[in-house]
């Protein structure tokens, strides 16, 4: 039962990174890719109606973590205190910049909102990567299930590497999205960025294998000991290759979908490498939180199993409906084939 909820949690996190990932990527890149006020307008308008719904995956994901593994929720959030609070401030800034940009029609106001949007998106992408990097590396958990990491220890070399990787992957994801949604010269620039960032992501992907093995060899041995789990890294590699192929064939929606699947592959690989650990302890201390010792009571998990799928089906219906409505127009090469396949939990 706890394992099932581990999978659900992975689904929530993956959905969040895939969906809000392109918002963050667009935010991180749009100052460079969009040269004119009209293009910037186009960039923010493309994600304007959906970013808030995308962000709900983070909130619902936090809810699922709280629901199923309260000990991990409590330990991780208090231990990574500064990192988390910075994320919260950045989310406030990102949300306000996006929602309030069109409220005042003034070039300086729009420029200020664009700058806040860019900075907060790029930093969020980096910090989310840093957080995942710390989880993989392990944290100094004590016997009471708590730990403390000062800000400069949160920003250790491995976590920063993962953070940079996260930023590059999400920027590539956002560029793929813009190539699909934007028009004319803007789209051309986005396409070039998508290609270059994709190559950079591929290089970093390979380069990170050794450091990951160095900080936590189980991340790799877990995969080789259970060969079926190798489908996750295979999915990542395959999707990355598919992304390049679709980009060279100028099929932008499939390229964006492939970029989404690449992220799915990365995060599921991480989940498969971690399992059964949820929040491992540094240096193989015995106090790590696993799906077993961090899980809540059986009755709570069984109860949630009744309503959770129902909520997911409803969310999927809303998202398919909204995405079809907002992304049906203009450049979409094929109608009605976009998001649904990512929605299945």
């Amino acid at each position: 039962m706890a394992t099932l909820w581990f999978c659900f949690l992975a689904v929530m996190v993956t959905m969040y990174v895939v969906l809000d990932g392109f918002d963050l990527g667009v935010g991180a890149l749009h100052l460079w890719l969009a040269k004119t006020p009209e293009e910037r307008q186009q960039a923010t308008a493309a994600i304007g109606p959906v970013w808030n719904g995308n962000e709900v995956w983070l909130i619902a994901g936090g809810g699922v973590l709280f629901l199923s593994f309260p000990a991990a929720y409590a330990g991780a959030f208090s231990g990574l205190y500064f990192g988390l609070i910075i994320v919260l401030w950045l989310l406030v800034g990102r949300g306000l910049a996006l929602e309030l940009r069109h409220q005042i029609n003034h070039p300086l106001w729009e420029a200020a909102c664009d700058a806040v949007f860019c900075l907060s998106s790029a930093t969020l992408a980096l910090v989310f990567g840093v957080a995942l990097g710390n989880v993989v590396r392990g944290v100094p958990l004590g016997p009471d299930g708590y730990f403390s990491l000062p800000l400069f220890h949160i920003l250790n070399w491995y976590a920063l590497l993962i953070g940079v990787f996260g930023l590059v992957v999400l920027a590539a994801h956002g560029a793929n999205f813009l190539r699909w949604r934007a028009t004319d010269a803007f789209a051309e620039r986005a396409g070039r960025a998508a290609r270059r960032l994709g190559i950079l992501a591929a290089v970093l992907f390979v380069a990170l294998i050794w450091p990951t093995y160095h900080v936590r060899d189980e991340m790799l041995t877990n995969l080789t000991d259970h060969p079926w789990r190798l489908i996750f890294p295979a999915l990542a590699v395959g999707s990355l290759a598919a992304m390049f192929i679709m980009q060279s064939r100028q099929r932008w929606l499939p390229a964006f979908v492939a970029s989404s699947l690449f992220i799915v592959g990365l995060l599921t690989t991480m989940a498969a490498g971690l399992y059964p650990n949820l929040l491992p302890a540094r240096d193989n201390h015995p106090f790590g939180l696993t799906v077993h010792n961090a899980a809540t009571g059986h009755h709570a998990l069984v109860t949630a199993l009744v309503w959770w799928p129902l909520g997911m089906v409803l969310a999927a219906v809303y998202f398919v409906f909204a995405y079809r409505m907002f992304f049906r127009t203009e450049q979409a090469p094929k109608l009605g084939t976009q998001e649904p396949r990512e929605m299945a939990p």
Partner: protein
Amino acid sequence: MSSHVTVDRLQFTLTVTFHYLFPILTMGLALMMAWLKSVSYLGREDHRFPLLRKTEEERAHYEAAAVFWAKIFAVNFAVGVVTGIPLEFQFGTNWAKFSNYAGGVIGQTLAMEGVFAFFAESIFLGIFLAGRKRVSPRVHWISALFIFVGSWLSGFFIIATNAWMQHPVAYSGNGKAVQLDSFWGLLTNPWVGWQYAHNMSGAAITGAFVLAAMGAYFLLMGKHTEFAKISVRVGVVAALIFCVIQIFPTGDRAAHNTAHMQPSKFAAMEGMFKTEKGAPLVILGNPNTEQHKLDSSLAMPHFLSFLTSRHWNEELKGLDRIPTDQWPDSIPLVYYAYHIMVGLGTILVAIAGLGVLLLWRGKLYENKPMLWALMLAFPFTYIANIAGWVTAEAGRQPWVIWGLLRTKNAASPAESVPAGTGIFTLLGFAGLYLFVGILFLMLIVRIVSSGPEDAELPTTSSAAAAGTA
């Protein structure tokens, strides 16, 4: 109480109070907008339901009003969302021991809020705001209904969570953590029903008074009179309905629950230091925590016993029968917050009643003193809502979960979140929210000063065109 717990409490007080200013209006206005949209969409000249019997021109005005209110709603909702996210995560960052202890139970309702309420709310608001030209009138109307249902569901899950902290039920556990025993028991906690009705009615009062205030402002200015009349009319009628619901039955029943399930909070609210038969209802007075009595009080004898139990001479438990280590840590705060809520509620019901009376006599739109009163009354609804929550939460002390977990044992360990770190982030939140608050007011002033004329009328009929004139 250790200093890091104090800092955690201050930070949560700041973030939750500032945040809640926005959902009050979101939930209240969502109801009002759903009504305006329903009249606009369903109204017909021969509708068998009299309230929906509207001409095409009237419907166009309702639509324009809904469009204008949607602008205010959008800004208010955005600020509510961005200030709400920190709350969910602060359970983990600042109240880790509480989360660890109670996650097995309240994780259910908090996760359900995200899954059932937020998805619907955010997606349909996106459709409602961005899709006005892209969707049919029917889908647009349904979106308004979904926003209403989503925001009120969100309120339910939060009240259900809070109700469990006020009156824990359906759990079992050791000293380390509690586990859920019955999901149905959690949702049907005897605390939930009246508390939810009382809270939502409070939000509806704010929505109604904000509607009336905006309408009164434009009537006094002599601008946008058709829009203004709809806002004032819908506002004062809804205000009176919900003010009455607020007092009876919801306020009465919520107080009754408190008296029975949380006698120490009830005694602090009413300033009852002594156990008494035929306890008086205190109208005015200052709690003296040194001598454990009320100074300079004005009271109605026997009334409190009657209101609580319907018997004039019922004995009510005062603070003297409760061990001092279970007293709320600030009795004056609980007492004053409660009396401010009740006092303002009384003023508001009077204003709403007078407004409806004048509306019925057909004199409301010309009565300047009344319009001034309506225009200036809406901030008191916010104060009353917040004061009610201060009563509920400060009165729950020293417990974070009534009878189970004390607040001083609920915060994150001092090693993880020392007081200095907490002060740093508290100041950060204070500065950020000050900026957000100023920005919010500035944007609302801009929307109001450009007025409802900017609303794009959805139909091309001549009646609709005339409506903007």
